[in-house]
């Protein structure tokens, strides 16, 4: 069982399966309604939904794949880590000639100098190259183990540890994370679900670019606990507020269409003798005393559209085509009755059944905007960040902190000294070879 889980072949197999499964989830739209699937896939729809392909990344079998992958990483690392620790902290210093010659870099050379002199020169050279040295003497010979950057050996383990922490974080987020949208009008206070505090929106404003597109939304929020303001902060997109593990995001906005204020300009068609803008709320009546005109603003829709049955409705909650239904009475006779459009001011007269001397224009409207705040609690996120740090440190160690290990046997041979040198590097052999040759060269010179 351990052997099965710790095999790299399983890693390769799982990686390929995960790649295929993950790809599948982008080819089939995720999390749509059963009707949408029925329409797109016909008879296949029930199968797709039952097999979890329509919610692939949350499906039990995808999660099983991730768990298997994690187990594989854990067992792979555990079966190798003991050996690695031993090699790193309690390395074998004594070596045999045969083993030395088997290393991918090796060299044998002789020196006319006595052994202590040769050793001293070699160690000096190694130290100047940043090697850490361990040595052991044995009768007529000295064994030297020179190493640097041995932390690099743990690069891949650090990456794997990081991935595990990220996966754990992901599972925590998925199982106990919580997310909800709260719509707040200015000055409104609402309790935050599952807590003992409330959220108050003090002020909300939308900022625009010169071309009219939205630049940013700013909500000034207060946390209220036991009727006391605990803190106040203005949040905007990319700058949320954090409080006791909860994070408050500027997520959206909308208009409160219950009773917007409209501006209507009343004019007489004959000449410019009379033109009066009036501000009123929907559902109110206004009397223009001097002229004896009564304006009755009856309905408002933000996005005017006619249904197939010729009924007026609003296509959306956005002010794409604002319209008001207005009735005007002049001396108690109906002088105007119909829809006025903000964006199509010339359209009104055609809709009024009564031809009178009055012209009405819908000039402007003011509706209160509300702010949509997303409340999120994600206890897994800390794990994810810690995991990411491990992954990045590990990648750096694995690729750019490549361990180098050199072994030397310095033997006394009559009056001379024989030196056997060997080295092994996992990656970047070229650089290592250069360094190896350099050390050999300079230790021969002296």
């Amino acid at each position, binding site marked *: 069982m351990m052997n099965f889980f710790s095999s790299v072949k399983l890693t390769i197999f799982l*990686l390929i399966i995960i790649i295929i499964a993950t790809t599948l*989830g982008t080819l089939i739209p995720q999390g749509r309604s059963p009707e949408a699937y029925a329409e797109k896939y016909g008879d296949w729809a029930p199968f797709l939904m039952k097999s979890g392909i329509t919610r692939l990344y949350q499906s039990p079998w995808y999660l099983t794949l991730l768990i298997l992958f994690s187990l594989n990483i854990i067992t792979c690392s555990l079966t190798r880590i003991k050996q690695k620790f031993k090699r790193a902290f309690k390395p074998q210093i004594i070596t045999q000639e045969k083993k030395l010659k088997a290393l991918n870099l090796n060299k044998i050379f002789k020196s006319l100098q006595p052994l202590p002199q040769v050793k001293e020169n070699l160690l000096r050279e190694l130290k100047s190259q940043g090697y850490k040295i361990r040595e052991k003497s044995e009768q007529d010979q000295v064994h030297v183990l020179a190493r640097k950057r041995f932390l690099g050996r743990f690069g891949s383990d650090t990456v794997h540890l990081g991935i595990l922490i990220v996966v754990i974080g992901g599972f925590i987020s998925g199982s106990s994370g919580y997310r909800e949208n709260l719509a707040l009008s200015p000055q409104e206070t609402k309790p935050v679900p599952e807590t003992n505090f409330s959220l108050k929106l003090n002020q909300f404003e939308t900022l625009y*670019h010169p071309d009219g597109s939205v*630049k940013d939304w700013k909500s000034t929020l207060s946390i209220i606990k036991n009727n006391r303001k605990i803190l106040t902060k203005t949040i905007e997109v990319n700058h*949320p507020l954090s409080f006791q593990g909860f994070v408050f995001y*500027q997520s959206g906005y909308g208009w409160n269409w219950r009773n917007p204020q409209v501006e209507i300009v009343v004019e007489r068609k004959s000449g410019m003798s009379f033109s009066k803008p009036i501000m009123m709320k929907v559902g109110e009546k206004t009397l223009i005393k001097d002229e004896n005109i009564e304006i009755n603003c009856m309905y408002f829709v933000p996005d005017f559209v006619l249904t197939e049955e010729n009924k007026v409705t609003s296509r959306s909650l956005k002010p794409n085509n604002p319209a008001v239904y207005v009735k005007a009475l002049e001396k108690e006779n109906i002088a105007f009755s119909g829809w006025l459009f903000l964006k199509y001011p010339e359209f009104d007269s055609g809709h009024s059944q009564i031809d009178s001397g009055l012209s009405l224009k819908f000039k402007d409207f003011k509706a209160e905007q509300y702010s949509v705040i*997303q409340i999120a609690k994600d206890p897994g996120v800390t794990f*994810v960040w810690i995991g990411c740090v491990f992954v990045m440190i590990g990648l750096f160690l694995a690729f750019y902190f490549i361990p180098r290990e050199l072994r030397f046997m310095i033997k006394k041979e009559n009056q001379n000294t024989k030196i056997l040198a060997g080295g092994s590097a996992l*990656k970047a052999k070229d650089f290592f070879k250069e360094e190896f040759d350099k050390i050999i060269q300079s230790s021969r010179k002296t």
Partner: protein
Amino acid sequence: MTESTLFLAAFICYGISAALYFVFLFREKEKWAITGYKIIFAGFIIHTIALILRTVESGHAPFTNMYESLSFLAWSGAFAYIFVEGKYKIRKAGPYFILIIIVLMALASSPLMPKEAKPLMPALQSYWLWLHVSVTLLGEAFFAMAFITSIMYLVAESKKKTPIKQKKTLSPERLDYISYRCIAVGFPLFTLGGLVFGMIWAYKAWGRYWGWDPKEVWSLITWFVFALYLHTRVVMGWKGKRSAVIAVIGFLTALFTYFGVNYLLAGLHSYL
């Protein structure tokens, strides 16, 4: 000098450089490649100035629409080439790789790409835009480099069987090694920029670090493919052909993440 003039000048430099490298390929005289290298370097400097001008004029990072992002990717490609050529002397890969840069520049200047700098939508107004996009695209440029050397490896290997004389300067083994080194640069950059910075920014802007958005998913797939490359190579000792094939698939995945997802799959990243 306006940004578009400089962009055009850089484009022309890359074109001349590619032409010189192709001459080098057929004439096999070093001087052509050396001049080509100088000219791509000049193009890179001019391109850098163009990007700086664009940033100053628009007031935000120069990768918020397809034109800017393609231009930046081409710039990253020029950087990657100058870097790798400087280090490993892979002149024979030059003409092919610079061709990729030229394709990117041509796509960027195509009339289909909206060029005007528009004001940024709220979610993009963050310094994470800089970090996330620049590091990711730089990583992808190195994947492209590995792609070219891997293709060259595969071609060289298939020629080996037929008795055509081998060019000494760039042996298949060296191509294989350079592919690996490019991925060794690209993979950490892509992990940091694409995944880590992407998650941090997503968390700041949208309130979640991961949402299985198509772009996110395809970044993960890219990452998995290169993880496969590294494991088969380092642990199982795969080298040469099979390694090169995975590197090619990896780059195509990265390309789809960068380009295909925007046009074929709907998601939050739809603005870019």
